[in-house]
């Protein structure tokens, strides 16, 4: 039977509980998996497949590690989704908006409006383009953070795209709220300008965010 202790260690990573206790836990988990694999073998599964199947009963090793740490230290671990999605997403949102604020403060003063069909977009592009160029960094940071925390690829992707998703939410809410609050305003919103703004603020940033995140979109790391 293959020694699965190293395989478990590689998946669990460091528990931060002290060498002796970690060794004891590894040994115990290893014995459990060996028993499970032996039972599978007894039912006719090939040894390698049995060892793999036993190991695969744990679908999320980083979460398992968090659970063990929480049980051992008595501390309540941060909710898994908070760690792998909400925190990196919040970081991306803050970073993206911070960079946008810098572009707006130090770039040309401008405004946009969807009431005016003849918007002069030139100054708008002047701060938008530097901001868009900075967005791959935001996507990369969020995706890497999420992956380090043990997030799955979908968590990494959603974290990286958080700034664009948040802006999409804002845009989607603007029209219905405008209609509900003041029909005169809603009647003056030009659909073409609204759609253009949605593309500029949602789809355009989504692309560099995705480009930045792409190299980091991988299955979660075992070690932290």
């Amino acid at each position: 039977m293959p020694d699965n202790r190293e395989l478990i260690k590689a998946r669990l990573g460091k528990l931060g509980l002290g060498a002796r206790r970690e060794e004891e836990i590894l040994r115990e988990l290893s014995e459990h998996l060996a028993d499970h694999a032996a039972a599978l073998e007894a039912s006719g599964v090939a040894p390698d497949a049995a060892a793999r199947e036993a190991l695969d009963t744990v679908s999320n090793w980083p979460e398992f590690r968090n659970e063990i740490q929480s049980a051992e230290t008595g501390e309540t671990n941060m909710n898994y989704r908070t760690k792998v999605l909400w925190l990196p997403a919040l970081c991306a949102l803050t970073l993206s908006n911070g960079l946008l604020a810098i572009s707006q403060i130090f770039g040309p003063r401008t405004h946009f409006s969807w009431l005016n069909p003849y918007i002069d977009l030139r100054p708008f592009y002047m701060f938008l383009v530097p901001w868009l160029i900075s967005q791959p960094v935001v996507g990369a940071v969020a995706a890497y953070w999420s992956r380090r925390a043990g997030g799955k690829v979908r968590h990494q992707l959603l974290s990286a795209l958080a700034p664009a998703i948040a802006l999409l939410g804002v845009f989607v809410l603007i029209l219905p709220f405008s209609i509900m609050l003041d029909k005169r305003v809603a009647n003056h919103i030009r659909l073409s300008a609204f759609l253009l703004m949605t593309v500029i603020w949602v789809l355009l940033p989504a692309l560099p965010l995705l480009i930045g995140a792409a190299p980091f979109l991988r299955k979660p790391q075992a070690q932290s």
Partner: protein
Amino acid sequence: MIGIDTKIKRGSGELAILALLDHEPLHGYEISKRIAQQTGGVLQFNLASLYPLLYRMEKRGWVKGKWEEAQNGRKRRYYHLTRNGKKQLAPLREEWGMFFQALHRIAGVAHAG
């Protein structure tokens, strides 16, 4: 097989483990095997769901793990029910009994106990 919600599983897992260890000390794999057998597979604990629960119970002083030689000659960590764990068993049984009675009254859910 009907899937059991994780929170219910955790809560009921403590009672199941204490009840099993009340008869004899068992190691982790044997605990998970017996729970699956005795519940007809409705409650199932794998590595990831069982050990955090056992370690939490050990921290609370309900069970105590000791390395002992198993029948096959390998050393295994056997979990023993402590005095504190024994004290927990009766109120937990009562709590779950009341829970199922309440469910039975409201939704016609029968319980074995």
